[in-house]
C-alpha cells in the first residue's frame, strides 16, 4: 500500500496518454461486458423456461420441417406422457420488420394445461379467448409498447405463412393480456402473442394438417430420457422421423439455427482484445522507456530488482483494472438498453465477472515485458545519459 501513491503518480505522469489508453480499455471492456452478456443469454436461453419435465419433439432432420398433426394421438399414448400440445413458428412482425412479434398458434386447452403455472391471465379474458375464433392473448409489455388495448384489431405480418387469399397479413382481435408468473421469465415472453391453431390451420394456404413441433409434459422428470426414446421409436423409419429432447436443449438448438452466435461474439472480442493488447503493450513499453532514468534512480536509492518489477506490474494492473471496472460498470448500466434491443432474451450480469479476470490477464501480459526490462536495468548505463 505504501507504494500506491508512487505507482498512481507514475500512472498519471502523462495525463493525456493515460486518459486515451484508459478510454480504449474502457471501451474494450464495455464491449466485452455487452457481448459476454449477450453470449451468455444465448448460451443459456432455456434456463427455467419450461421446467425439467417438458420435452419437445421436432422433425429429426430440421426444426424447419413440419410434423403431421396426426402424430398427436400416438405421442399421447406413450407411457409417461401426461400432456401433449402443438405449436408452429409463425414468424411475425407488426408494421415494420424491426417490430418483431413472437406469435404462436396454439391449441388453447392443451397449451394452457401444459403451461398452467406460467401465465397470469384473468378468467374473463381467458374465457373471451376461448370463445373468440380470431382472438389473441398478448403479453402486457407488448400491449404497452405498441399502445394496443383489449378490443383492438391488429394486423401481424407473417414472414412465412400466406393465407388462402395470398396475403401475408393476419388480423387478430385482442381479447386479453397476460404476464409471466415468474418475473424472471417476463422478458422472454415480452413479445409473445398467442392465437388459435384452428384459425391458423384453416387460413393458411399450405402445410395444412402439420405442426412445427410437439411439446410434452412428462409425469416423471427422471424418466425424460426413456420417454423421449419411446416417442422417437414410434416414428422410426417413417417419413417423418422425430427428435425428442428436453425443452432447454430445443431452445438452444433453435437459437443456433441463426448461426454460432458464441463463435461470432468471441471472434469480435478476440479481435478487440488483440488490438488492445498491442495498443496497451506499446503504451506500457513507451512509458517505461521514457522513465528509464527515473527507474535507475529508484534502484540507486535501494529499490531491489523485484520491487521495480512489482511497481511496473502494479501500474499495469491498476490501469487495466480501473478501466475494466469502469467499462464493465457501463455495460451493466447498458443492460436495460440491450434488453430492449434483444427482446425476449434474458440478460444476466453474471457474465461481467469474468471480465475482471480478463483484465488481470491483460495487465500481466502487457505489463510483464516492460517490467522485465525495468528489472534488468543496469543503473550505470541508465544513468549515463542523464546524470
Amino acid at each position, binding site marked *: 500500500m505504501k507504494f500506491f501513491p508512487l505507482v498512481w503518480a507514475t500512472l498519471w505522469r502523462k495525463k493525456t496518454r493515460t486518459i486515451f489508453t484508459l478510454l480504449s480499455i474502457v471501451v474494450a471492456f464495455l464491449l466485452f461486458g455487452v457481448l459476454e452478456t449477450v453470449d451468455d443469454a444465448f448460451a443459456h436461453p432455456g434456463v427455467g423456461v419450461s421446467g425439467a419435465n417438458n420435452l419437445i419433439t421436432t422433425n429429426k432432420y430440421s426444426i424447419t420441417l413440419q410434423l403431421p398433426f396426426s402424430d398427436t394421438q400416438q405421442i399421447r399414448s406413450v407411457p409417461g406422457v401426461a400432456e401433449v400440445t402443438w405449436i408452429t413458428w409463425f414468424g411475425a412482425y407488426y408494421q415494420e420488420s424491426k417490430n418483431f412479434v413472437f406469435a404462436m398458434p396454439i391449441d388453447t386447452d392443451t397449451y394452457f394445461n401444459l403451461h398452467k403455472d406460467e401465465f397470469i391471465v384473468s378468467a374473463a379474458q381467458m374465457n373471451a379467448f376461448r370463445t373468440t375464433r380470431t382472438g389473441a392473448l398478448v403479453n402486457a409489455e407488448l400491449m404497452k409498447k405498441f399502445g394496443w388495448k383489449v378490443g383492438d384489431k391488429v394486423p401481424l405480418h407473417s414472414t412465412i405463412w400466406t393465407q388462402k387469399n395470398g396475403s401475408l397479413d393476419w388480423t387478430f382481435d385482442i381479447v386479453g393480456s397476460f404476464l409471466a408468473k415468474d418475473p424472471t421469465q417476463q422478458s422472454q415472453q415480452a413479445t409473445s402473442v398467442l392465437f388459435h391453431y384452428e384459425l391458423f390451420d384453416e387460413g393458411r394456404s399450405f402445410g395444412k394438417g402439420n405442426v412445427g413441433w410437439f411439446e410434452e409434459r412428462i409425469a416423471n422428470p427422471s424418466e425424460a430420457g426413456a420417454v423421449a426414446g419411446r416417442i422417437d421409436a414410434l416414428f422410426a423409419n417413417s417419413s417423418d422421423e422425430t427428435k425428442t429432447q428436453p425443452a432447454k436443449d430445443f431452445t438452444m438448438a433453435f437459437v443456433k439455427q441463426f448461426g454460432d452466435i458464441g463463435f461470432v461474439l468471441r471472434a469480435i472480442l478476440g479481435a478487440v482484445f488483440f488490438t488492445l493488447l498491442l495498443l496497451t503493450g506499446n503504451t506500457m513499453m513507451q512509458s517505461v522507456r521514457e522513465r528509464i532514468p527515473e527507474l535507475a*534512480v529508484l534502484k540507486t536509492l535501494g529499490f531491489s530488482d523485484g520491487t521495480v518489477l512489482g511497481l511496473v506490474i502494479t501500474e499495469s494492473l491498476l490501469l487495466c483494472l480501473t478501466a475494466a471496472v469502469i467499462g464493465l460498470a457501463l455495460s451493466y448500466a447498458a443492460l436495460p438498453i440491450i434488453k430492449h434491443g434483444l427482446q425476449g432474451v434474458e440478460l444476466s450480469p453474471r457474465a461481467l465477472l469474468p471480465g475482471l479476470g480478463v483484465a488481470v490477464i491483460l495487465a500481466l501480459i502487457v505489463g510483464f515485458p516492460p517490467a522485465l526490462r525495468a528489472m534488468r536495468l543496469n543503473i550505470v548505463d541508465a544513468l549515463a545519459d542523464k546524470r
Partner: protein
Amino acid sequence: MTAAIVSLSHVSKRYVRGKQSIEVLEDLSLDIAQGEFVALMGPSGSGKTTLLNLIGGLDTPTSGQITVAGQRLDRLSSGALARWRSTHVGFVFQFYNLMPMLTAQRNVELPLLLTRLSGSQRKAHALAALTLVGIADRAKHKPSELSGGQAQRVAIARALVADPTLLVCDEPTGDLDRKSADEVLHLLQELNREHGKSIVIVTHDPKAAEFAGRQLHMDKGSLLEPGTLAA
C-alpha cells in the same frame, strides 16, 4: 588517526564493449576517512564517475577490494548491494533526478518507502530533511515549480533522509549558476562539518573543489597523487 569509511585496494575496472575492452580504472588504491569531504577532479574520461559508482555500490570492480562503512562491496550480490545502498549511502546527481510527478516531500520520502516507517513518520522525516536543507516551505511543490538550486536541495534532502554515513555527489553544481552552486556547496560543507557526513564529490569546477577538505586528481584511470588517510 580516523578510521577509513572508504577503502579501495588495487581496484581495477574494465568495460567490454563488443570486441573492445576498455580499462577505466587501473590498480587504484584509496582510503577516505570517516567525516572527510573529498573532491575528485580530472578531465572527462579519467574515471572519476566510475570510481564514484564503485564507492556508492552502483557498480562492482573487475578486480580488487572495496570496503565502505565496514562492508566488502565487491562480495555482495546485486540484491544485497541494493539493500546496503538504501541504508548507507546517499546520492546527489548533476541533474537532480527527482521524480517529476511527485512533490518535493514525496521525492524525499522515496528512500523511506524501503523502511518500516509509517506514512506519518515518513512525512515527518522528509519534512525534517527539507528543513535541514532550508527548503521546507517548498515541500508541496513539484520539481517543475522549483529553481535549479531548490531542486538540488531537494535532491540533497532525499540523499540525507535515511541518514546515510556517506554522500556521493556527481557534479552536484554542474547545472547551477554560481550563486546557487555556492549555496549548495556551503550546504554540503555544513553537512560535513556540523553533521559529520562523509562526502565524496566529483567536479570539474576548481571553485567547488575548494569546499572539500581534500582534492584528488585523476587521469587515465589512476590517481595522480595516492590517497592518504586523513589525520
